[in-house]
């Protein structure tokens, strides 16, 4: 049971419409993902690395059924969560942080107000934020603070599958380390599966068991982190590793 695949993606294709000048023009579209297939085991941390614009976010969004796609995606879990690349946009501008963090618990139900507040405070502490932030609106936070709120909100529900789109990019290294540790801890604790999108190869190495290397909407290479990092087959992977100073 434990090794069952939590996610299976086969032959995924995604197209985006191209904007038109007038409503009377013909529709056009461009293909962003081409024949993407992979599987993810329960409890694994899968890294997704790739150049900017290669379609990582698009892949994440199609897994969560937010955009139309072709191909099959099988999700063996109830409620996957996502940390959005743009944390600001994913926080409701008219609500205070306290409300935003409590919302998932309210939705799940079964907890009293006090229990919820307690949980929120605990989580806030775990992501290294002070309590006074609860009273703020999202626009009053720094980039890193927003990102941590987004992570906290996603973890609030103790999901089985977490898709994290650049979750630590805006964090300074100490907090980054703290958050990564938190993710690891929770991952272990709850056998959480994480699709970890990042461009930071070192962070991916720290975090992930397996890794997918993406370029221009296609998966160039995949496999065990060790394997890919030190015995890569694709030249693109090589370039990435070199740039990151991992390979000399």
């Amino acid at each position, binding site marked *: 049971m434990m090794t069952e695949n939590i996610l299976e993606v086969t032959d995924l294709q995604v197209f985006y*419409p191209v*904007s038109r000048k*007038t*409503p*009377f023009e013909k529709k056009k579209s461009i293909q962003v993902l081409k024949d993407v297939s992979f599987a993810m085991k329960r409890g694994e941390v899968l890294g997704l690395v790739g150049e900017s614009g290669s379609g990582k976010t698009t892949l994440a969004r199609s897994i969560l059924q937010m955009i139309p796609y072709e191909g099959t995606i099988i999700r063996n879990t109830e409620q996957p969560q996502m940390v959005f690349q743009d944390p*600001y946009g994913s926080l409701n501008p008219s609500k205070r942080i306290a409300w935003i963090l409590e919302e998932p618990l309210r939705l799940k139900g079964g907890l009293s107000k006090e229990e919820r507040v307690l949980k929120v405070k605990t989580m806030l502490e775990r992501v290294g934020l002070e309590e006074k932030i609860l009273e703020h609106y999202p*626009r009053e936070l720094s980039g890193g603070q927003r990102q941590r709120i987004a992570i906290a909100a996603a973890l609030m529900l103790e999901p089985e599958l977490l898709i994290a789109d650049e979750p630590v990019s805006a964090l300074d290294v100490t907090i980054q380390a703290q958050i990564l540790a938190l993710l690891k801890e929770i991952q272990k604790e709850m056998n959480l599966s994480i699709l970890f999108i990042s461009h930071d190869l070192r962070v991916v190495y720290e975090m992930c068991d397996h890794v997918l290397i993406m370029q221009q909407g296609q998966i160039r290479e995949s496999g065990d982190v060790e394997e890919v990092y030190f015995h890569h087959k694709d030249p693109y992977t090589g370039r990435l590793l070199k740039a990151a100073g991992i390979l000399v």
Partner: protein
Amino acid sequence: MRYAGKKILTMCVTLFAVTLFVFLAFHMISGDPVTSMLGTQATPERAEALREELGLNDPVLVQYGRWAAGFLKGDMGTSYSYRMPVSEMILDKLPVTITMTLMAFAWMILISIPVGLYAAKHEGGMTDRIITVVNQIIMAVPPFFAGILITFVFGMIFRLFTPGGYVSYQINIGKFVGYLFFPSLAIALPKAAMAVKLLRSSVISEMKLDYVRTAYSRGNSKRSVLYRHVLKNAMIPVITFLGMALSDMIAGSIIIEQVFGIPGLGRILLTSISNRDYPVVMAVIVCIAALVLVVNMVVDVIYGLVDPRISVE
């Protein structure tokens, strides 16, 4: 093109539905055309004869079919009460309503955009506070009370126009437009006030967004940030309102027509409803509905053009 075709088709379907509803409504409300045509002189025999002559004894749907068939052939029928071709009446009044609406719309734009932007630009300042308070009050003034006040102040005290001195556009276009100056203002004022409020708050909330900071960082003046960056974004929620206000003015100018004694479509509609003169009512409603639908369609298109994130479908 297919998009436009589809829109027009749905528009026609809507129009069809509206006319059918109106037709049915007429058969449910008390009083029939014959009553008002014969007045107190009606005897049951004469009423019956007239009913037969007008075809009012046929089933409702047959009557509707007859009306619709005629309409499609371009024949709007003859007014029961005026005994004149409906098309003539409509053509006579349509320009009045359209001119007045367009003038009111122009007023609304001319007042609301500069004032709204000004208030937003000077948010919290003395002028802004004055504008906001005045605006709140104007919004609270019922349009028809505004009409009375305008008549009283500009018509009776300052003698800037003659109340009731409406001149038909067929006689003198200049005077016609001149007369509509104040009525259109009366229609526009409360709506303009609301547009100011909307625009102001929309601009203010946009001004807090990050892209505004970016615009400043490039050396834009507050003015150019407002006009070149924020305005378009801030207009998005306002556009819907403006479109609606326009439709509202077309459909709802009756009260102001009444106060200022302007013979427009609204008045024709009102009396025709009272007279159960449904060839006229149907025609006016088709006109108003068509105008409203066109406005809605234009708003949708503009909306899509202004906000690239929304695809037009």
